């Protein structure tokens, strides 16, 4: 066991924690049964510190990364929680199958995906990861190993997926995969004039493609506010076997002298340079399946460019009916606070709220900003705007959120009560849990 200061991936939340890396199941169980509070740690790439806490023992799961069953007839794959989404998808693709809900980065573990109930690049089409999970085996020192699925222990199933690791350690997961609809992905780029138009176009186009998302520049004046591109992706029969190497992403990489001195300039340059480069590219490109699945892989320099201070991300869903008014006020707020936005993207969402799942009908906006005092003030004002327009924030993306804002989720109190009922001794704890007073 080592003691270490652990940072959230955005670099803003940290804790003095302990880390252990069991390599045998009995060591894992022994650690879980000890008196110290625990929390599972996958790749350690969560933007909020859900994988560590002060004096909490973070249990690394990445050596539990095996495929335990592969059932083509039932289209089910059973894996251990430490397998990375990239490795699992690579395996499925080689066999002619696909898994639709993938985060942008391949090294994120399946356990991490479940704990945050992640959505992929096109939540409208495929939902959240919970919609693709058949069963989980969960271990909690006070309850033992429990099998949870939609017929057995469904409450615990729903509480664990999207439960930020607070119900215990996932021992294995059964996921449902799909047949591949093509050998590669065609990506069509459509230029859009502003943020309001982007969402309306995406709503219009969404049923014609397999995935749809956008990139927008929010550092422009009113008429052009949110000018950018919509990316419409469909499976293609064109063979594209470009091999991609899964790169390493970490908070340590951006602590170098080079990124400290280049940070101010690179942050200003990111959006305009990206826009120019994208404008010069063809409107239609063909991508290998893995390239399309993990667009951030190979672009680690983006995160490194924030330097030691890191960045902040705000991701929210605004109901369709409120989108236009929300964007108008967002523009005013950005102008007033004079913040520099390095990345902004839209997705279309559909679904119902349950516990703290990031899911409801509406437009999802993600914003990245270099971390500083101005950012915090801007995000605090954005909290109020989001509440005014009946939005919800993504708890796993923002290490700043308070219980007051988490209450935008109508089931926040129910989630809190259910977690406390299941784990009254608080055997599982994290900085996120403490901060949100769960």
């Amino acid at each position, binding site marked *: 066991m080592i003691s270490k200061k652990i940072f959230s991936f955005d670099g803003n939340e940290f804790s003095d924690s302990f*880390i252990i*890396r069991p*390599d045998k199941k*009995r060591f894992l169980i022994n650690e879980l049964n000890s008196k110290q509070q625990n929390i599972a740690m996958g790749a350690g790439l969560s933007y909020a510190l859900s994988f560590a806490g002060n004096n909490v023992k973070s249990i690394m799961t990445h*050596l*539990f990364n*095996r*495929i*335990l069953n592969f059932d083509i007839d039932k289209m089910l794959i059973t894996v251990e929680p430490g397998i990375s989404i990239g490795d699992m998808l690579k395996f499925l693709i080689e066999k002619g199958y696909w898994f639709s809900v993938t985060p942008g980065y391949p090294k994120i573990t399946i356990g991490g995906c479940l704990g945050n109930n992640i959505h992929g690049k096109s939540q409208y089409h495929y939902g959240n990861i919970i919609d693709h999970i058949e069963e989980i085996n969960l271990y909690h020192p006070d309850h033992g190993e429990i099998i949870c699925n939609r017929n057995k222990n469904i409450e615990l199933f729903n509480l664990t997926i999207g439960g930020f690791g607070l119900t215990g350690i996932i021992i294995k997961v059964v996921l449902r995969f799909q047949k591949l609809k093509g050998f590669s992905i065609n990506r069509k780029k459509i230029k859009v004039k502003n943020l309001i138009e982007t969402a309306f176009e995406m709503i219009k186009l969404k049923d014609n493609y397999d995935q749809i998302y956008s990139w927008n520049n929010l550092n422009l004046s009113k008429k052009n506010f949110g000018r950018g591109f919509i990316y419409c992706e469909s499976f293609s029969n064109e063979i594209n076997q470009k091999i991609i190497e899964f790169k390493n992403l970490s908070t340590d990489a951006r602590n170098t002298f080079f990124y400290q001195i280049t940070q101010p300039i690179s942050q200003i340059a990111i959006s305009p340079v990206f826009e120019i480069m994208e404008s010069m590219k063809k409107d239609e490109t063909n991508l290998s399946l893995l390239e399309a699945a993990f667009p951030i892989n190979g672009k680690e320099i983006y995160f490194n460019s924030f330097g030691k201070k890191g960045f902040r991300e705000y991701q929210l869903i605004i109901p369709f009916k409120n989108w236009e008014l929300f964007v108008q006020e967002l523009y005013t707020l950005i102008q007033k606070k004079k913040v520099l936005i390095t990345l902004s993207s839209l997705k279309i969402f559909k679904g119902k709220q349950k516990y703290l799942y990031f899911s409801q009908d509406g437009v999802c906006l993600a914003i990245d900003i270099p971390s500083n005092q101005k950012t915090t003030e801007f995000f605090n004002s954005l909290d109020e705007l989001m509440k005014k327009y009946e939005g919800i924030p993504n708890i796993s993306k923002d290490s700043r959120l308070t219980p007051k804002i988490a209450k935008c989720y109508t089931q926040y109190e129910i989630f809190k009560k259910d977690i406390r009922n299941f784990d009254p001794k608080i055997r599982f704890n994290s900085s996120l849990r403490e901060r949100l007073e769960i």
Partner: protein
Amino acid sequence: MNRKVALIIGASTGVGRAISEKMAKDGYDIALVSSDKEDLLPICLDCSIKYGIKAMEFSINLAEQDFNPKILLGNVLKDFIEINYLIYSAGFVSENDFGPSSDTFLDKTIRINYISPIKIISLLTSEIELYKIKSIIVISSIAAFVPRKRNILYASSKAALEIFCSGIRHYLSDKQTIIQIYSLGYVDTSMSFGKKLFFPIISPENVAEKIVSDINNDFGQRFYPSYWKWIVGILKIIPWFIYRKISF
């Protein structure tokens, strides 16, 4: 199709697990041995699902006084026609292995690191035709070359094993079977996790890559990474009045 068969002892974690996965990836059938059945089964499932090879697990306690290699090898031969490669990667080191030894872990250390492997190697090499053994690879440690106050029993057991293997290599010099001894430097395993060490730590996958790629070469003994040859050489010529003050 007849695939070559590798018997990997100490396969549930670390270097043994990495070798198992690498051999499966390269198309070998694998017979995995460890004391923890519940840790071997996931590796067997994973390797057979990913690479379409045959993988079987055999749970055995190498620390037992009455450990009988005939039973183990007999069981392996029930599932596989022959055993072409033996990789002995099992090892045991106690945190209490410091200074004079106590009975509690003395037996276990010597059995796992010395007695059990020589029993297995002796049986395999005395019946080469039966098992069709081609290479025997023994994973040792640089600790065997530079005795120090910590891990004395472990180091001396491994040193004894190395001497035994070198002798067997000479005995087999007119046969087709080869013996390889790897003296490993710092490897990223549960033993080294989180420790601040003076020299770089290499991954078990890196070690596995090297071992499997050279599995048919008759080189005898090798340090890996190779720079340990120089480090060990320097440590060996350090005068006692300096060596006694070094803490490592």
